[in-house]
């Protein structure tokens, strides 16, 4: 059984208007029906652009926002339906590492106080001495000196502050750590330190992470399974390598082609899929497939029917009506130039139907005259043209 199972999770925020009656005039569909599973000891990466609902989903797992519909089951317990009192004690098992390391640490508390507060609240350690011992242990694990205990957050650099945030989550021995943009506020050289630390800790302590980030390269680096979110729902979910090797959803493909790679050779020759326009408002999402307004492959069906997340083989799930066609190249995207190698299989599929009887008419002629196929084709077309002229 998976450690964390989300089933049809929806988080809708009401939009209210009016002073007296507070009428609800609509909803912001921040998270709109997400189901996923996080296995123990693994890392699940949730990636998407700003406004796609990934942070709201993370907060819903911790129940920092209330879930409108669906269930969030951690190890057999539905967090979404837990009574307030039990939720408090249950939260020890779910911890979060926030994006802004300075904003998430109280500037007036020293490190010992910050780290022991949660332990005291959850009754971990008999007295302060015992807690201090444990905190020292964890600080060493995250690579901070033990003299950090009596210092304050402003005395540390950004990377060190993020280590404190990680230590704060670790001291409670949680089952699941939710990392919301854990490295996006840090400089590149520091980012790598924190990413490596998260990976080392996972290896030595058997941690389970739900990593929420906008940077596909970071997510791919640390995740076992990646879920791609667009406008409140998952459009694709796959093991990290499978997603990179063969992105199936048009949005994932566009996202991947937009991530800059620090290598001019790669930059110069890669295919770019430029998306036009901006993310639609989650208060008024498009009908059918949420992505159809920006999708270069969009078909009339996409605006009418919302695709379900279905398995395309090997645990690679995708929510798109035309996965097969796009993969085979029979459906071309708007404005795409004729590919030089691909048209052989795709072009006949489109152009054959009007000439369908042609091969049958062609074969006897070709056999009789021993003509090449180039000569045969005009001959085969001619009778068709005559027939239509006679009618």
């Amino acid at each position, binding site marked *: 059984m998976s450690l964390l199972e989300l089933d049809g999770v929806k988080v809708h925020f009401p939009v209210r208007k009016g002073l007296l009656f507070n009428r609800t005039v609509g909803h912001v569909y921040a998270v709109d029906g997400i189901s996923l599973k996080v296995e123990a000891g693994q890392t699940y990466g949730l990636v998407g652009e700003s406004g796609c609902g990934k942070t709201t989903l993370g907060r819903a797992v911790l129940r920092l926002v209330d879930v409108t519909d669906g269930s969030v089951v951690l190890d057999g317990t539905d967090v979404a339906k837990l009574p307030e009192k039990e939720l408090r004690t249950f939260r020890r098992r779910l911890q979060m590492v926030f994006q802004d390391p300075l904003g998430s640490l109280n500037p007036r508390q020293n490190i010992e106080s910050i780290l022991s507060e949660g332990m005291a609240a959850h009754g971990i350690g008999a007295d302060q001495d015992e807690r201090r011992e444990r905190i020292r242990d964890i600080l060493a694990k995250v690579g901070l000196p033990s003299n950090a205990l009596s210092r304050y957050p402003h005395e540390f650099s950004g990377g060190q502050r993020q280590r404190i945030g990680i230590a704060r989550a670790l001291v409670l021995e949680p089952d699941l750590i939710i990392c919301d943009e854990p490295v996006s506020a840090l400089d590149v050289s520091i980012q790598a*330190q924190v990413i490596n630390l998260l990976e080392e800790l996972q290896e030595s302590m058997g941690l389970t992470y739900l990593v929420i980030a906008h940077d596909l*390269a970071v997510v791919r680096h640390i995740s076992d399974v990646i879920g791609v979110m667009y406008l409140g729902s998952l459009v694709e979910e796959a093991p990290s390598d499978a997603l990179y090797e063969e992105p199936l959803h048009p949005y994932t493909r566009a996202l991947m082609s937009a991530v800059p*790679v620090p290598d001019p*050779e790669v930059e110069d020759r890669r295919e*770019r899929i430029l998306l036009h326009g901006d993310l639609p408002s989650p208060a008024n999402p498009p009908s059918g497939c949420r992505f159809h307004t920006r999708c270069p492959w969009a078909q009339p069906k996409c605006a009418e029917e919302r695709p379900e997340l279905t398995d395309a083989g090997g645990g690679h799930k995708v929510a798109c009506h035309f996965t097969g066609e796009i993969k085979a190249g029979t459906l071309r995207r708007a404005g795409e130039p004729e590919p030089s190698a691909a048209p052989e299989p795709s072009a006949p599929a489109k152009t054959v139907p009007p000439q369908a009887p042609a091969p049958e008419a062609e074969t006897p002629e070709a056999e009789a005259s021993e003509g090449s196929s180039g000569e045969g084709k005009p001959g085969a077309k001619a009778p068709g043209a005559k027939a239509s002229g006679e009618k």
Partner: protein
Amino acid sequence: MSLLTVDELTVTFGGRGRKDVRAVNGVSFSVDQGQIVGLVGESGCGKSVTSLALMGLLPSKGVTLGGRAELDGTDLLSLRPSKMRDLRGREMAMIFQDPLSSLNPVIPIGVQVTEILQRHRGMKGEAARKEAAHLLDRVGIPDPDRRLKEFPHQLSGGMRQRALIAMAVACAPRLLIADEPTTALDVTIQAQILDLLKELVDQEGTALLMITHDLGVVAGLCDQVNVLYAGKVVESAGRRELFAHPTHPYTHGLLGSIPRLDAPRGEPLHPIRGSINDQIAWADGCAFAPRCDRYEMECLTGTPELTEPRAAGHRARCANPVLATTEVPA
């Protein structure tokens, strides 16, 4: 001759009895017509202060400028404020990181764009409005006539950045400085904006000074790259040369720190140890030495010079540069 020549630029913040802080410590580079030059570095390396100094946007009090910066022969550092105002927007323009705080929230976009046209090109009324609509259209904003009447908050992030670019190119400046123009944007929008900038440079022959922390952006965009560390250029080369053979240990370390989308999974990152706070003054040696795995005693005796240890035109400021290409980033 280069359009913009910056020679040993220094910017020192001081005053009020505080210790002086030298944010930019002798930066030299040049930008040619139609060329895209990158200034790359992490926070605190002095890349933004360099751009502000060039644009004359630093406060006059408490700041000491040194060195030389010339735009086509005009000395930018000693220019009188009124002359600088004539130059700014017309000859050189800047695109900032945060499009929302760079636009006035209580004035419609149209007024903000036409203001530049009135100030520098003497256009008035309907002609200015038409030109403004044309500019918005040029940078890919759909329905420009309607957008001109709207306020900044009604536009999306990408749209605002486009509006800023429209304002920057309104007078066809010869030099465009873009300070982290895509950092606040999502990757798909970033790709749109970078495409637009590239197109403007190709078509108008504008010179672009691109300031960014993102080596990925640099790899796809810049012709020439300058890597800054602690207020000095530590490495400078053409982009292909730089990415194929990073010679300074800092550049080498930066490239080893970035998780690459196309790298095989499970390959560990090689971060640079310590943080930017662990540095020594350039006067005493190499500022990067405390974080460097290759430092020797030599690195702690005086400022290393920019030399060409590898190839002509590829300069690095290091006493013990990385020369073998097969070396694992340290």
